């Protein structure tokens, strides 16, 4: 079981992550034992700082020969050239194709892996026009874990072959998108309790469906339409008008227009499956715009995730209308 998981992870790294890194960094990273490779969640590159691999809750530094080291002085130090080469590989020499993403501070590479960027912002009329002198990259390795939503799905089914509107809540890197992807697949495919429903996915960051030329590269079920790289708010309204979905799924609500679009969808009789950053419901309640959705109880269920003891742990499933905890690991 572990071997197959390791092999799957190794294949994924070889297919999507290594082609996005300069060859000498690939040689360093691929040198670590395969059982540890399988747990990499992030690869962090910072100019003049050690190359860091994040494995769940811990991070490790590597020497230039690929050995795990504890002292920073013995670690491989990333150069500006490493970052530039990695960006060149990730963008396929086409930075213009990532203009919108760059403004938001990330790009998504093949396989739906998001690469966070930090550098110097260029401001025009108070708006971020672009990022220059990029000095940090955070490659977040997305995982497709089929079946991770098995325990959650039954709580989302309502009478009349309906799915209730659900908000997945967690801090960053706790597996929201992975769970969302699996739930989309389950809703779209259906089971004995709930037959498959038409699902519309607005994949603003190309993370959920990992589309290549507009076609999903991960299994999202048979009844899923994906609007790739489209702003959430506009995408949700477009899907409601054009594709008549029963459920709309999207990632990371946050802006005022996202909240407006969620309201529009819910008032149009479409269920919404979305994710939001926050440690728990109370924390999300304090957030501007999204807090209003919690206050007005627009969602029927809250699913709270955490990374303890491991990434993707379901902490609570809450019925918001009755303020009742349906399931808790706490």
């Amino acid at each position: 079981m572990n071997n197959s998981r390791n092999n799957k992870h190794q294949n994924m790294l070889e297919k999507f992550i290594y082609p996005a890194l300069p060859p000498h960094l690939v040689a360093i990273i691929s040198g670590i034992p395969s059982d540890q490779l399988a747990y990499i969640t992030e690869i962090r590159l910072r100019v003049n700082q050690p190359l860091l691999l994040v494995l769940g809750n811990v991070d490790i530094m590597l020497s230039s020969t690929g050995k795990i080291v504890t002292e920073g002085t013995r670690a491989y130090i990333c150069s500006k050239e490493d970052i530039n080469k990695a960006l060149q590989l990730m963008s396929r020499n086409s930075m213009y194709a990532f203009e919108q993403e760059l403004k938001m501070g990330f790009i998504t590479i093949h396989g739906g892996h998001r690469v966070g960027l930090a550098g110097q912002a260029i401001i025009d009329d108070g708006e971020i026009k672009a990022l220059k002198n990029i000095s940090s990259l955070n490659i977040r390795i997305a995982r497709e874990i089929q079946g991770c939503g098995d325990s959650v799905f039954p709580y989302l089914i309502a009478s009349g072959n309906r799915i209730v509107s659900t908000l997945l809540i967690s801090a960053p890197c706790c597996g929201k998108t992975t769970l969302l992807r699996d739930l989309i697949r389950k809703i779209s495919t259906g089971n004995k309790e709930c037959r498959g429903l038409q699902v519309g996915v607005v994949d603003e960051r190309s993370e959920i469906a990992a589309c290549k030329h507009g076609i999903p590269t991960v299994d999202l079920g048979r009844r899923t339409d994906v609007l790739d790289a489209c702003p959430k708010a506009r995408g949700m309204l477009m899907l409601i008008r054009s594709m008549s979905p029963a459920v709309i799924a999207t990632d990371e609500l946050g802006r005022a227009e996202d909240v407006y679009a969620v309201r529009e969808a819910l008032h149009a009789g479409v269920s919404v499956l979305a994710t939001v950053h926050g440690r728990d419901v109370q924390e999300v309640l304090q957030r501007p715009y999204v807090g209003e959705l919690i206050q007005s109880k627009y969602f029927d269920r809250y699913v709270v995730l955490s990374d303890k003891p491991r990434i993707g742990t379901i902490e609570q499933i809450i019925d918001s209308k009755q303020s009742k905890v349906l399931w808790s690991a706490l």
Partner: protein
Amino acid sequence: MWLKIIGGVLVIVVSSSIGLQLAARCSGRPKHIRQLVSCLGSLKSYITYACLPLDEALLQCTHGIEGPVADFFHHTAALLQENGVLSPGQAIHTVLEDLQGRLLLQKEELEVLEVLGANLGVMNRHEQGQYLSMIIEQLEKLETEAGRIRDLNTKMYRYLGVCSGLAVVILLL
């Protein structure tokens, strides 16, 4: 006697063919520049409108064009796909060296293409579009100049080839 006649014919044939080749190069240059301009116009659309990655845009922009100019774009795309660490500038430089002799371009056009490679793919869409427009404009100017030279020289090279052959034969006889 027969030997002299055969030798004379050979000299005329060789000098004429040299003249014809020079004339072909002269008339081929504006044609290749025109094809380059056409492909770069398409490349600009594929970048600014369709937002295609550079390698794909380079492959797509040659619709309707065949020969060395299409090969220039295809080979550059292939190099970029094979070796992602290579910059567009390096890829273009390599391809221009490989296609030396087949592309009927002069130093001026080659310099423009090298400059194109230096800034390809590193700008935003708007700037990339403006940059390609500037490159196209430069090539159009060179095309006008190449057309003028073609009109002046094509006939001259042809006649010069035949006439110089005849002159050599007369002198030798």
